[in-house]
């Protein structure tokens, strides 16, 4: 069972976002970091930030899975290398399901569509 954001706490999720902070932003116009911006990532097309050099593995993954659903994000955050072998993201993952739910809730909270 995935960790859906409806059960997550975005305030706690901001703390969990520190795992991502060195490479990712949640600002839409901050696209010059080592990783793509995570603004609007929930529901966004996979590997779709214009001009970003995604790994061959993630580009291939985008051919199989169209968008980052909450469930797919949860599986990715749990162990990125298991869902996308050879992803260039070194981060080993967030083990705790509630922490992943908090993080996804935080990411969604930064998206003005929600």
């Amino acid at each position, binding site marked *: 069972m995935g960790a859906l954001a409806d059960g997550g706490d975005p305030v706690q999720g901001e703390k969990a976002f*520190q795992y991502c902070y060195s490479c990712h932003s949640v600002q839409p116009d901050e696209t010059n970091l080592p990783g793509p911006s995570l603004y609007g990532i929930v529901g966004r097309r996979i590997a779709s930030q214009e001009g970003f050099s995604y790994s061959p593995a993630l580009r291939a993954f985008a051919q199989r899975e169209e968008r980052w659903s909450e469930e797919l994000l949860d599986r990715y955050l749990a162990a990125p290398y298991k869902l996308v072998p050879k992803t260039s993201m*070194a981060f080993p993952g967030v083990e705790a399901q509630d922490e992943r739910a908090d993080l996804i809730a935080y990411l969604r909270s930064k998206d003005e569509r929600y």
Partner: protein
Amino acid sequence: MLPACRIAFALLAFLAFTGSGSAQQPQQVFPLPEGTYPHDVAPAPDGKVWYSAQRNGALGILDPSTGQSREIKLGPKSAPHGVIQGPDGAAWLTDGGQNAIVRVDPQTEKVMAWKLPEDTGYTNLNTAVFDMDGIHWFTGQNGFYGRLNPRSGEIKVWKAPRGRGPYGITATPEGDVYYASLAGNHIARIDKTTGDAMVIEPPTKGQGARRVWSDTKGRIWVSEWNAGQLGLYDPKANSWREWKLPGDKPQAYAVYVDDNDIVWVSDWGADAILSFDPATEQFTSYPMSEADANVRQILGRPGEVWLPESGADRLMVIRTARQSQ
């Protein structure tokens, strides 16, 4: 053939470890257990080789003479990024998962951890280096750098200028300490008296300075990830030079300078390791064992350059005896 880049055809036929009579192969790969994910590598004092098994929360130990490897677990939530050999002969790891500096004694295999101060928060510990006084300096990619005095256990952490980004770190023969800021697009020199970091800007904007390494003259070589360039900062002249890596879309990840002042760079764009001779300004390319091997760091000892293939669960060595003669 491009004049600035020669392919090391003589070394193309690298071989996996076979267990017999393979010690003199110029380029050799050592398979590790699936899922090891060796992030960084460091030669150990007894001829073995350490690696940070980031996804296993462990220090890995490879015996190149047998090809056998094993792991020492570092603790709950461990996810080590870097490993180096300290002046005490021990393995020192920057463990992001534990937010701690970890030491593993090579004789007793005792694991000791120095947690960063609680109020610092998660720093995303990255890489470390010892200066000539035996002080351990480290970076935290979330925007920190710091030092640990192994004798007293005192830890001091500073917020980096311009925030997130501190990545590779190096010490010069004179004892100066520099780090690279990947997200901050600069390198910085740490004033070891005050702890202040002085930002030094490479000529190329947005270059993505990821790792740094000092040569024997105290010059700082920089792998510029975004720009796909090799940079060189000369502190005495306060001057820069930069060289574009060969190929269509180079991405310079790791940099290391060997005992002969030959510079080594991993290029993810070409799935290759490049050596660069500062005297001739020529690159020589060595292929990795497979596509997307993703070499994130380079370290060696005289005659050997070691490469962790994080994407392939292998270590590779390039033996440089020819260049050492």
